């Protein structure tokens, strides 16, 4: 990007990007939070419903299963051999005969049934409720000789009951064994209501299962914490309950006596999965949205910053070239920017106008100063102009640039401005100057520099005005600089000044012919005058043509037509070339 980034302010594109992106990101984040919250709530509701429904189904299935188990028990109780053995057992026992063999028959029949059914405990009790035999892994808790309940209802249907035996709680299904109308015994199927039972149920229910008896959890497929939490609350038959901070759906599967079996489903856990799925989708969508937001923000930033950058580039070029003439190109980025460019163009035009005015004023000042100087002495009238012309000719001969020539011209025009501060008596004195007067004359370069110093736009000419009487041999004034220490412009003006002084008439002498002046220049070249400049002088047409008159007409009307003073005829000024010039004073004294 061409716009130069400053150390302090961030680039517009960055600002726009940051702002747009953060706004979009904030909105997105808000939407995300809202959506996920709402989704979570929805998912939790749905999950709760699902769990409840499935648990209700399972409860129905479980009730059916229990019923079927009862019927199955009834079927098992009809095993002919078993029945025969039990009936015969009673008969023989009542007759006082040994019954060991019958008991072992009963036990082996039970074991056969157990092998088929794989039940935890199978027991046969007599009509008196005393267990005759048991089979199954839990048979140890149902030993022969111990008693079971005998309070059957009238229908002879199976009876479900909860039995505590030796610290274990069983769900017992008791079926009366009948032969004809006679109850000959009792067939008992028992399942321990423990963690394993709960886990087996839980596997089918797809939910955790807890078995609660009198407020105590006697079997559970869940963790210990949940178990403790369940013991602290009363579980509803069906509904939701908060356990351990989580929401749970509870459904009672069955209840027998004081024991009840509940399916407990964690809504929180179930919904976590669904929620995380939704969250994943939301995050992906959010990621894409952010990406689009970033791209959009970038585009927006470019749209805003681009034209501004182009405008800046145009202005930078304009400033670098100092070129105020071309109108600013319209970026077309926005009406505001175009209007800004338009305003700038107006400003530019105003500045150009003001610049032109100030240049005119500047030129006026120069002319005024030069005229004021020249007007003091009719002999020096036009001197400044002529020196300026000659200097420009010399500068051109020395291949100076246009800007340098202009500097040189203005400098030459003003080179004697310091003479404003020299008394007319000294200035216009026709006779030879006293040393004191000469010292006064020698002050004029410093004086000129002092006059021009406040004027900023004469800065380049200060050296010319101040140093145009310095000589290569160091005998010049005011500083006695030597050789190349003297600026070239000052050296040029020095030569031009001397030449014009020599070829102009003075109150005390006539104008010197060009040849004489040239000869004089040649004589003191290297000492008084710079060799390079004199060499250039000798190549000038005014010298090669050898006519002094031509010098006046040569380029007197070039740029400063304002300065048109009546030129003294070479003839009338004959014999007096010296003037208030630097070398002239020396020359005047030397003569």
């Amino acid at each position: 990007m061409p716009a130069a980034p400053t150390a302090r302010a961030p680039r517009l594109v960055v600002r726009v990007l940051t702002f747009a992106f953060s706004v979009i990101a904030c909105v997105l984040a808000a939407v995300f939070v809202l959506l996920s919250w709402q989704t979570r709530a929805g998912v939790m509701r749905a999950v709760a419903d699902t769990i409840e429904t499935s648990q209700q189904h399972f409860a129905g299935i479980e009730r059916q299963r229990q019923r079927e188990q009862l019927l199955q028990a009834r079927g098992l109780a009809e095993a002919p051999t078993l029945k025969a053995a039990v009936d015969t057992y009673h008969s023989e026992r009542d007759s006082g005969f040994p019954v060991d063999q019958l008991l072992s028959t009963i036990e082996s029949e039970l074991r056969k049934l157990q092998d088929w059914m794989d039940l935890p405990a199978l027991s046969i009790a007599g009509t008196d409720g005393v267990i005759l035999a048991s089979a199954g892994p839990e048979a140890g808790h149902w030993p022969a000789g111990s008693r079971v309940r005998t309070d059957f209802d009238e229908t002879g249907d199976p009876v479900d009951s909860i039995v505590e035996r030796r610290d274990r709680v069983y769900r017992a299904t008791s079926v009366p064994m009948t032969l004809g109308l006679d109850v000959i015994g009792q067939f008992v199927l028992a399942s321990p209501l423990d963690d394993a039972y709960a886990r087996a149920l839980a596997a089918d229910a797809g939910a955790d299962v807890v078995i609660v008896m009198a407020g105590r959890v006697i079997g559970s497929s869940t963790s210990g914490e949940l178990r403790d939490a369940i013991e602290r609350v009363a579980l509803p038959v069906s509904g939701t309950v908060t356990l351990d901070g989580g929401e749970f759906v509870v459904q009672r599967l069955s209840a027998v006596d004081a024991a009840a079996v509940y399916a407990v489903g964690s809504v929180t856990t179930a919904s976590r999965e669904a929620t995380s799925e939704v969250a994943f989708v939301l995050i992906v969508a959010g990621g894409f949205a952010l990406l689009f937001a970033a791209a959009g923000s970038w585009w927006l930033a470019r749209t805003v910053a681009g034209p501004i950058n182009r405008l800046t580039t145009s202005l930078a070029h304009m400033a670098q070239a100092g070129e105020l003439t071309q109108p600013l190109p319209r970026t077309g980025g926005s009406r505001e920017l175009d209007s800004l460019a338009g305003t700038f163009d107006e400003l530019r035009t105003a500045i150009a106008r003001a610049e032109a005015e100030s240049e005119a004023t500047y030129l006026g000042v120069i002319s005024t100063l030069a005229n004021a100087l020249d007007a003091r002495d009719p002999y020096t009238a036009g001197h400044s102009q002529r020196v300026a012309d000659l200097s420009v000719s010399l500068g051109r001969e020395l291949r100076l640039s246009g800007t340098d020539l202009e500097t040189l011209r203005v400098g030459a025009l003003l080179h004697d401005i310091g003479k404003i501060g020299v008394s007319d008596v000294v200035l216009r004195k026709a006779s030879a100057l006293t040393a004191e007067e000469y010292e006064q004359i020698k002050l004029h370069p410093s004086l000129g520099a002092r006059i021009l110093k406040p004027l900023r736009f004469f800065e380049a000419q200060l050296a010319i005005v101040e140093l145009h009487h310095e000589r290569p041999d160091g005998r010049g004034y005011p500083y006695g600089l030597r050789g190349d220490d003297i600026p070239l412009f000052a050296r040029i003006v020095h030569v031009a000044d001397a030449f014009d002084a020599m070829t102009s008439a003075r109150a005390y002498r006539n104008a010197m012919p060009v040849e004489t002046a040239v000869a004089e220049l040649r004589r003191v070249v290297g000492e008084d005058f710079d060799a390079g400049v004199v060499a250039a002088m000798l190549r000038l047409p005014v010298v090669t043509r050898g006519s002094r008159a031509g010098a006046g007409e040569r380029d007197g009307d070039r740029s400063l037509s304002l300065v048109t003073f009546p030129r003294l005829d070479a003839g009338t000024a004959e014999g007096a070339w010296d003037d208030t010039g630097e070398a002239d004073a020396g020359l005047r004294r030397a003569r």
Partner: protein
Amino acid sequence: MGNARVVAAASAVFTAILCTVPWTVLRAGAAQEGTGPGLGTIRGTVRVETRSARRLATAGVYPGRAVVLAAERDTSELDNVVVFVELSDPVASAPRRAVIRQSQEEFVPHLVAVTTGSTVEFPNDDLIFHNVFSLSRAATFDLGRYPRDESRQETFREPGIVKVFCHLHSHMSAIVRVFDHPYFVIPDRDGRFSIPDVPAGTHRVTAWHERAGNVTHDVRLTGGGSAALTFSLPLADD
């Protein structure tokens, strides 16, 4: 070790017989109903709390060949009662033949009483297979399965209660009571019974029903006489 005891028991029995014989003869003579000298008849009535009908624990397993349910059958709990004299020593008697039919998924009759050495036949009248087996000490047997119109039989050599079942139909059961003497009878439909030719003397007479158990009365029987007994069997209606 047994000799002393046997001698003691024998002498006690002998003494008892010596003491009772004259009294028994006196009683029997008074009754004048005996069929022989020193023999009398025990007769009487048995009352049971009969129920109007028997129920089957299970319905018929062959719906296409519906059996007549027991409820519709003409049965009486009196058929399931046997009245007998308890004797400590066996009395030789002729073997008998008895039949328990397998009819309508029932053993009919439910109860038979026979002397030792008797043979009971078990013909199958049903369209379906039946089986006959027993786990009882007095007779443990399994006659296998057999179809209609076939019959198997079992000879009972030991006195006792023999419970008979069918392996195929768990609700079927029958009882064969085997006595080592001939002094037993199943009452008629009115509950009346008569046990003739019982040696005179004091006897324990028992009426037995599988659910009610034993109801026993002592009776003094004179030769040629008769003794009347009334048994009331407490058969609770469930």
